[in-house]
């Protein structure tokens, strides 16, 4: 799977490119309308700077992607997405293949990374509201000994519901928090883009199985 990392990154860019206008529009409701452009450029830059990403160690690969996102993207997007990948990578150091438990550990690392960097909590109308439900779903699947496929599909579903739940939340972090109650009724663009990224990663990994 590790050898497929670059093609998954390319797939992420393709999906984000398709969703660019939608993400820009979501951002225009709450911010300055460039989130779609920012995330596409961020992942393009990751590929550009990591062309030879052929890792046996997925933990290393995720951290390398994360460092590129965190240090050379800019905006708020870079540090947040970067921290998610870096902390996810740390939890699966040395692994070439991920079990459902590894997925749970990696994603909960991502959640911790975003919380720490963005000083945000679940319910603040951020990407955490997409990622955290996915971690919860994975925890349940691990407890129930469900198959990798079953567990990951449930995680995507949970992430999607989490993303959609941001519509009813009031933003408490970042630029949009200044809009207060005016943010109700709009899906958070970071919650949306992180859903598309997670969905793309999982979908491609399942095809590998």
């Amino acid at each position, binding site marked *: 799977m590790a050898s497929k990392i670059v093609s998954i990154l390319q797939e992420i860019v393709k999906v984000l490119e398709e969703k660019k206008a939608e993400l*820009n529009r979501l951002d*225009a409701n709450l911010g*300055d*309308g*460039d989130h779609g452009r*920012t995330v596409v450029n961020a992942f393009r830059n990751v590929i550009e700077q990591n062309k030879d990403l052929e890792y046996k160690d997925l933990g290393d690969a995720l951290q390398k992607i994360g460092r590129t996102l*965190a*240090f*050379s*993207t*800019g*905006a*708020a*997007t*870079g*540090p*947040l997405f970067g921290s998610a990948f870096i902390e996810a990578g740390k939890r699966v150091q040395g692994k070439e293949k991920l079990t459902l438990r590894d997925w749970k550990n990696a994603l909960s690392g991502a959640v911790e990374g975003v919380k720490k*960097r*963005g000083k945000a909590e679940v319910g603040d109308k951020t990407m955490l509201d997409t990622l955290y439900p996915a971690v919860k779903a994975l925890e349940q699947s691990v407890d129930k000994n469900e198959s990798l496929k079953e567990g990951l599909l449930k995680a995507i579903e949970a992430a999607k519901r989490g993303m959609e739940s941001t519509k009813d939340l009031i933003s408490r*972090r*970042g*630029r949009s*928090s*200044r*809009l207060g109650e*005016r943010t109700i009724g709009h899906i958070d663009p970071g919650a949306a883009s992180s859903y598309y990224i997670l969905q793309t990663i999982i979908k491609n990994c399942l095809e590998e199985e």
Partner: protein
Amino acid sequence: MLKKFINKPEDVVNEMIEGYLVAHKDVVRKLDSSRVLVRKEAPIEGKVGIVTGGGSGHKPAFIGYIGENLLDAVAVGDIFASPSAKQIYDAIKAVDSGRGVLCVLGNYSGDVMNFDMAVEMARDEGIKVEQVIINDDVGSAPRENRENRRGVAGEVIVWKAVGAKAAKGASLEEVKEIAQRVNDNTRSMGVAHSPCAVPSKMYGGEPTFTLGEMEMEIGVGHHGEPGVKRMPIKTADEVTKMLVEPVLEDLPFRKGDRVSVLINGLGSTSLLEMYIIYRKLYQILKGREITIAISFIGEFFTSLEMGGFSITLTRLDKELESLLKSPAKSPLFHYC
């Protein structure tokens, strides 16, 4: 759509820098591998380096203040988006003479996260770095949540003061203390009657917010963040009063204080209007027996083509007054 004379929206920042560099090549240079502009002489022997950075679209901020007794380096972000941690780190490294570097930044989540990471990286390499986050905008959060307030035109006053202090050969701790002191004594409030647009398509971009034809919004941020209140547009005298009262109450400024006044046009408000505003501001302060020791009137920190202005007051002590009155010179800022 708001019209603009641009080529391609994705090229605006790089093309602006290209023009700026050739126009002011005696003063600034660009780092080879990073979108960072640096004062030509930096690092300057014996002087603490002053670094800032932020999104583009605020001319003359930020790069316009690279110069004598002002800034040493600026990490340049995309329009209204923070530069990356790597750019900021490169800026810190480029201006460190061994006496350390002070980073001054506005309180925006992207900037704060990227500066935090850059400062950590530089410290890991043994560079002495401190940072001060500016949050002068009264309109962006109530007094009890002062730590959530944005940094706006007050940043210019901080740059001017720390630039002067660093030029005297002060230590990093002393320069940092000045930045903190200016921030603690500075309050701003803005108003807009028309929006700005981030370049996003051929010949322009969509406005970042919309206001009715005869409407204005009090407390609007430098990127079009919503403010405190929308209402029908008022006269210069009325608006000046509405802006300056919350500023005065917030610190609070008191009878007998000496202050610096900054009237900052946000992009498409004329100097004619700004002097009308200054006239009223002078009357209000005089009535309260507050003395204006120094005034800055013009465009210092714009928001692309936004129509509006902000008022910034800084309470002065002897040292701050002398720092703000000392000469400074850069391509887009001049004080003598």
